[in-house]
């Protein structure tokens, strides 16, 4: 899985691509924790490039969301498609997150 991060309009956009599975999900946690340690607290996870997500990926996303909440931070999600969207819906996690159709809308929703 590839993870790219950039700053946009005061938020940190983390773009994931490839597969988020039990082996790669820890990379997401590690990267986000590094960014949080650097003081970032407003995040958008852009999942447009994600082909695949399993329950391990959901747990990693939820773990970071909880860590952020404890610091008064937030993360919203953008561009969930296909099977990724389905996995979120089955898990019920869809109701825990702000989910948007674009990064711009997700950033706006953070404020």
């Amino acid at each position, binding site marked *: 899985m590839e993870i790219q991060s950039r700053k946009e309009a005061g938020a940190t956009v983390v773009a994931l691509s490839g597969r988020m*599975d*039990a*082996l790669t999900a820890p990379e997401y946690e590690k990267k986000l924790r590094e960014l949080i340690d650097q003081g970032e607290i407003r995040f958008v996870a852009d999942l447009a490039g994600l*082909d*695949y*997500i*399993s*329950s*391990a990926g*959901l*747990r990693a996303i*939820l*773990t970071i969301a*909880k860590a952020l909440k404890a610091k008064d931070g937030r993360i919203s999600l953008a561009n969930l498609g*296909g*099977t990724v969207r*389905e*996995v979120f819906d*089955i*898990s*019920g*996690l869809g*109701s*825990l997150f702000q989910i948007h159709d674009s990064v711009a809308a997700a950033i706006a929703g953070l404020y």
Partner: protein
Amino acid sequence: MVNFDVLICPAALESLPRVIAYVEECAGRCALAGPKTARLTIAVEEAFVNICHYAYPDGKGDVAVACAHDARGPRAFTVELKDKGAAFDPLALRPPAESDDILDRPVGGLGVAMMRRFCDEVVYRREGEWNFLRLVVVVPQAAEPLS
């Protein structure tokens, strides 16, 4: 019935890419493609990861993964995972009742929900020293095998 060669690998997360690649290749040869394959491989991961977590609490062990395709009748594509670990019915893991529960529940309950949703049939059985977990998806009738 077409039985593909069995994949045997350690019950460890590092084996996951091999397991998924194996299932995708077998599924591709049966013209099971697109979203149904994607969902099946998620189910296989969930099953495999549960075995990694629970089958061999005292050490290491192997998992055998076997794909099979029944081209007649309902045209079922089957993935069976077999391990010689502790007797453990992964289907007994309770899915989290609420989303917030996910991190507090033992790993695996959410995976079971995925397996049940993404497969047409999920069956566990214990035979002697072996755990067997069978995942079945039915291939739509319209699909023809690639030659």
